[in-house]
């Protein structure tokens, strides 16, 4: 079963901006799916339509086979959303925000109080339950929005850049939590600018560019599209660098340089060549964030 089925979806805003040009997309139930794209590509519009914040111009959207137009109340019950921008009342207390959201889904007050305690403890906000939301740090506000999105036990969790502005330690903690949710059966749709996040967590991904889906595949397959990888090489002293110019070396400092090594080549050959040049290797590692490179490559095409 598909968690999301988008067919021929179009959106043109009142000012004439065509945000989505007839996109089609399927996200299987249980998937951890990434929707990638540059700013203004149409990611937030897709999410807005899925969550009833944006009206579609044409096309159809189904959530677990329920058409959002025909039975939007039933479709909404399956969704939890963490938007890009903070959208809670800054004067309300943390637990009140989560409990009120439960109420909007028809969950009785007693159950809402009990469930909010469980979720706030999971996202480590229980100690802050009586604090006005405006007093929370950026990372805490993000976690509050996650807690609020989970209070109705959604089958589909939509996260629009959930880790934007969140420090590294917290980001890793959030990744772990989201992985657990996905393992428990929650389908997750994620948009992010941290492509490392996608590489670490997502099974499938789509890349959207100016309102069109231009790539849609398994993350593993997308990475195969990279023809070469950048390595950071540390040596005791750089010398005879011109002898490895076929690797497009970029000198960082006296002992460090970067090289692009084709996937068709063996790493061993490269090491042999720099050894022959008289350089002694002290460390070598991939530069990382391969998806970012791929993303830029696809967008440039």
């Amino acid at each position: 079963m598909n968690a999301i089925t988008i067919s021929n979806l179009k959106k043109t805003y009142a000012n004439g901006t065509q945000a989505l040009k007839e996109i089609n997309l399927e996200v299987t139930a249980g998937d951890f799916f990434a929707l990638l794209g540059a700013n203004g590509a149409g990611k937030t519009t897709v999410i807005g339509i899925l969550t009833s914040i944006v009206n579609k111009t044409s096309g159809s959207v189904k959530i677990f086979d329920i058409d959002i137009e025909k039975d939007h109340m039933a479709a909404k019950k399956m969704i939890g959303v963490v938007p890009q921008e903070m959208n809670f009342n800054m004067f309300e207390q943390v637990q009140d925000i989560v409990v009120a959201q439960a109420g909007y889904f028809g969950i009785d007050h007693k159950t809402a109080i009990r469930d909010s305690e469980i979720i706030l403890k999971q996202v480590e906000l229980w100690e802050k339950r009586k604090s006005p939301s405006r007093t929370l740090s950026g990372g805490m506000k993000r976690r509050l929005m996650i807690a609020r999105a989970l209070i109705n036990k959604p089958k589909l969790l939509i996260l629009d850049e959930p880790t934007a502005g969140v420090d590294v330690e917290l980001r890793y903690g959030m990744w772990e939590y989201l992985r657990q949710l996905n393992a428990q059966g929650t389908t997750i749709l994620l948009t992010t600018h941290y492509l490392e996040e996608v590489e670490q967590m997502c099974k499938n991904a789509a890349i959207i560019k100016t309102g069109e889906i231009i790539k849609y595949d398994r993350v593993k397959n997308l990475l195969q599209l990279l023809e070469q990888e950048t390595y950071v090489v540390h040596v005791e002293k750089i010398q005879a660098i011109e002898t490895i110019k076929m690797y497009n070396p970029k000198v960082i400092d006296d002992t460090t340089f970067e090289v692009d090594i084709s996937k068709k080549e063996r790493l061993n050959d490269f090491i042999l060549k720099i050894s022959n040049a008289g350089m002694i290797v002290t460390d070598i590692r991939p530069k990382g964030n391969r998806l970012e490179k791929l993303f830029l490559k696809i967008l440039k095409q």
Partner: protein
Amino acid sequence: MTSQENYVAYQTIIRKEVVRFMRIWTQTLLPPVITQTLYFIIFGKFIGSQIGGINGISYMSFIVPGLVMMAIINNSFANVVSSFFGAKFQRSVEELLVSSTPHWIILAGYVSGGVLRGVVVGTLVFIVSFFFTVPHIYHPFLIIVFMVLTSILFSLGGFINAIFAKKFDDVAIFPTFILTPLSYLGGVFYSIHSLPEVWQNLSKLNPILYMINGFRYGFYGISDVNVSVSILILITLIIILAVYSLDLLKKGTGLRS
């Protein structure tokens, strides 16, 4: 949603609304009571003592229903317009939009919040009036009917205003340029029978006149207009505004892009 779930959602909105206006009671409950008290002192006591009675009752007694009604109108309107526009401004309205709460429950919840504030402020002003006069109560049921229907109507007005408002200035335009003048010209301080015939007829185009006079009838059994007509006008306007509000919510006007 089941009817039980709808009821929970409705309760949730009302609870939030009541907590909101009670939390900031120095901005929501106290100022209207002080303002109306000043009216009692200046118009009722200082000026009213020189005017004499109207329709057989003292001037102070005459203005009590009008001032209570004015407080109800302003506060039911203000509660909904500020709360719903505030939710739009902070985007916390999205909490409701992404939820499974039906549109009519959203409307009913906000309107009920407005009615509660209107009735609470109206009651407080009425209590304060006992320091100046002892108003007679002719028809308590009609008093309650006019209190509730008027606050429903102006809560709906506040809701529509909030939907169309794009900035804080837009929230103040309707109360400043329409609501306040119509309230003053709606017979709070005078009987329209004291006006020339042309102005009497023009006054009859003002819907607030019917609310104030209907309400006054509940106290003293006197009115410049037919009370049944007043109730009919109120109910008709409520139906029109409620249907319009629901249509705006369905289309997502001012809420969805």
